[in-house]
C-alpha cells in the first residue's frame, strides 16, 4: 500500500525556494539571518519554502549554520533578522544523537511526546505501538536504549516523532554517526516511511550520496556565514532503490552538487 503512494509523490516543482509560499506551505524562511550574542554570524539571509511531499536536503561544510537553521525553524532559537513561518501542526525533529531517555524502555520513550502533549494512556500506547511497528522494531518494546545498536536507537527516535503524525520533519544529520551499511539501510527505511506518512522534510547531511538519494531538492550552503549557494532539483521518481546510485544520471547530479561545494 505504501509503495503505491510512493509513486504518487513527484518531485515538487516549487523549485523556486524564494519568496512567500502558498497556503499549504509547511514552513517558510524569509531572509533569515542569525548572529549569536558573541558576534558569530552563523546564517546569512536564507530563504526557503517546504511544501507537502517535498524532501529538502541541506548540505554544507561543517559549522556553516545548518543546525542553527533548524533550531530557528523549530523555534528553539530566535532569528536575528527575517521571519520564519510554520503551518499549524506538530514538528518532528530528529537530532544527530538519538536523545533517548536511558531510564525509559523503547515503548516508554516512544510514548514520551504523546505524554507531554497530554494524550490519554490507551491512545498513547496504541500510537507508540504503531510507530514502533512502522520503523521495524516490534519485539523490542521492553528493551532499554543501552541494549540497542546505534541504528536501532535512531529508529526509536524516528518512531517517537512519528507518534504525533507531524506534517513536517526536521532531520539534523540523523545517520551521521552510523556505518555506511546501516546508513544505506536506514535511507531506504526512511523513504518507505516518508511515502507512508507523507510528510515534508528538511534533512541535513554531510553525505552527498545520501542527499541526492533521499531528496526532491538539494540545497548547498556556503561556509559560515551560511548562505544558500545553489538549489538542485532531483528528477528521479520514487520509489527509489539502492541501484539508483549506479545510475550515470545520479553520478552526474552528485558530481554537480559536489562541485558547488568544492568551489566554496
Amino acid at each position: 500500500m505504501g509503495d503505491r503512494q510512493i509513486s504518487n509523490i513527484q518531485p515538487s516543482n516549487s523549485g523556486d525556494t524564494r519568496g512567500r509560499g502558498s497556503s499549504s506551505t509547511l514552513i517558510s524562511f524569509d531572509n533569515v539571518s542569525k548572529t549569536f550574542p558573541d558576534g558569530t554570524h552563523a546564517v546569512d539571509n536564507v530563504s526557503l519554502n517546504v511544501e507537502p511531499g517535498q524532501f529538502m536536503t541541506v548540505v554544507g561544510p561543517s559549522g556553516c549554520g545548518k543546525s542553527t537553521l533548524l533550531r530557528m525553524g523549530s523555534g528553539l532559537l530566535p532569528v536575528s533578522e527575517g521571519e520564519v513561518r510554520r503551518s499549524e501542526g506538530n514538528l518532528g525533529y530528529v537530532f544527530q544523537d538519538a536523545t533517548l531517555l536511558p531510564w525509559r524502555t523503547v515503548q516508554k520513550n516512544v510514548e514520551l511526546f504523546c505524554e507531554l502533549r497530554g494524550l490519554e494512556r490507551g491512545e498513547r500506547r496504541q500510537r507508540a505501538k504503531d510507530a514502533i511497528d512502522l520503523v521495524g522494531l516490534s519485539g523490542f518494546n521492553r528493551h532499554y536504549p543501552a541494549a540497542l545498536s546505534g541504528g536501532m536507537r535512531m529508529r526509536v527516535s524516528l518512531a517517537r516523532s512519528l507518534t504525533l503524525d507531524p506534517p513536517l520533519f526536521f532531520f539534523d544529520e540523523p545517520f551521521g554517526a552510523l556505518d555506511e551499511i546501516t546508513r544505506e539501510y536506514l535511507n531506504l527505511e526512511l523513504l518507505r516511511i516518508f511515502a507512508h506518512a507523507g510528510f515534508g522534510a528538511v534533512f541535513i547531511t554531510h553525505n552527498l550520496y545520501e542527499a541526492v538519494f533521499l531528496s526532491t531538492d538539494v540545497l548547498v550552503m556556503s561556509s559560515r556565514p551560511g548562505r544558500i549557494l545553489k538549489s538542485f532539483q532531483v528528477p528521479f521518481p520514487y520509489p527509489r532503490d539502492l541501484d539508483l546510485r549506479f545510475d550515470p544520471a545520479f553520478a552526474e547530479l552528485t558530481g554537480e552538487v559536489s562541485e558547488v561545494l568544492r568551489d566554496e
Partner: protein
Amino acid sequence: MSARHTSSRLRSSTYRLWAPIVVFLAVLGVWYAISLSLDPDRQFLLPTPNEVIRVGFLNQDNLFQVLEGLLWTVAVSMTGLVIAIVLGMSSAIMMSQAKWIETSFYPYAVIIQTVPILAIVPLVGLWLGFGFTSRVVVCVIISIFPIITNTLFGLQSVPASFHDLFTLHSAGRPTRLLKLQFPNALPAIFTGFRISAGLSVIGAIVGEFFFRKGIPGLGRLLDLYRARLLTEQLFTALVFSSLLGILVFWGFGFIGRLVVGKWHETT
C-alpha cells in the same frame, strides 16, 4: 572451549572466596602470636580472639549491653539520615529551580561540610541539650552535604538536547523536573544516600563522645570500655559499629541497583 571457560570462571570465583579467608586466618594467627607473647599482666591490651568471643559475645549481659547500644545508635543515625535526605533533597531541588537560590545558599552547604564536626557538637549540646534531638542534629549536619551536592549535580547534568526535546513539546517546569531531571538524577542521588548513610552512622557514634547523659549508644560504650580497660567488650562494640556501617552502605547500594540498575551501570 566453553568448558574451559566455565572452569576458569569457577576457579576465579572460588579464588575470590578463598583469598580473603586466607588473609583473615593469617591476621588471626598474628593476633594470637602477639597476644600470647605479651606478659600476662599486660595481656589486657590485646586479649586472644577466643577471650574476646567468650567475654564479649558469649556473655549474655555484656552482649546485650552492646546490642542495646547498637539499637540506640541505629535509631539516632537512621532518624538523622531520613531528615538529611528530606532536607537535602528539597534544598537541592529548590537550588536547581532558581540560580539565585543556588548562589545564595550553596556556600553555606559547603561551610557546614568544612567546619569540623567536633567544633559543632558541643555547641549543639549547649543549645539543644544532650538527648535524642541533639544527637540527631549532629547526624544531619554531618550527612547532609553529599545529598545536596549529588542531587543537585544529578538535576543539573541533564544533556541540553534532552531539554530541547522537552522545550519543543512545551513542557513546563514541574513536568521537566518530574520526567527529566529527577530520573536523570537518580543514580547520583543513590550515590549520595550511600555516602551519607555511612557518615550518619559515624555522626551518631562520634557525637556520643560528647553526650554523656541519656541512654548509652555505641559511642558511649566504646568510650566507657576504653576507660575501664574492658578490651574484650571494646572489640565487640567495634565489630558491631563496623557491621552497621557496612550494612547501611551495602543496603543503599543494593536499593540503588534495584531502582536504577536496569538502565544504569552502577559501579
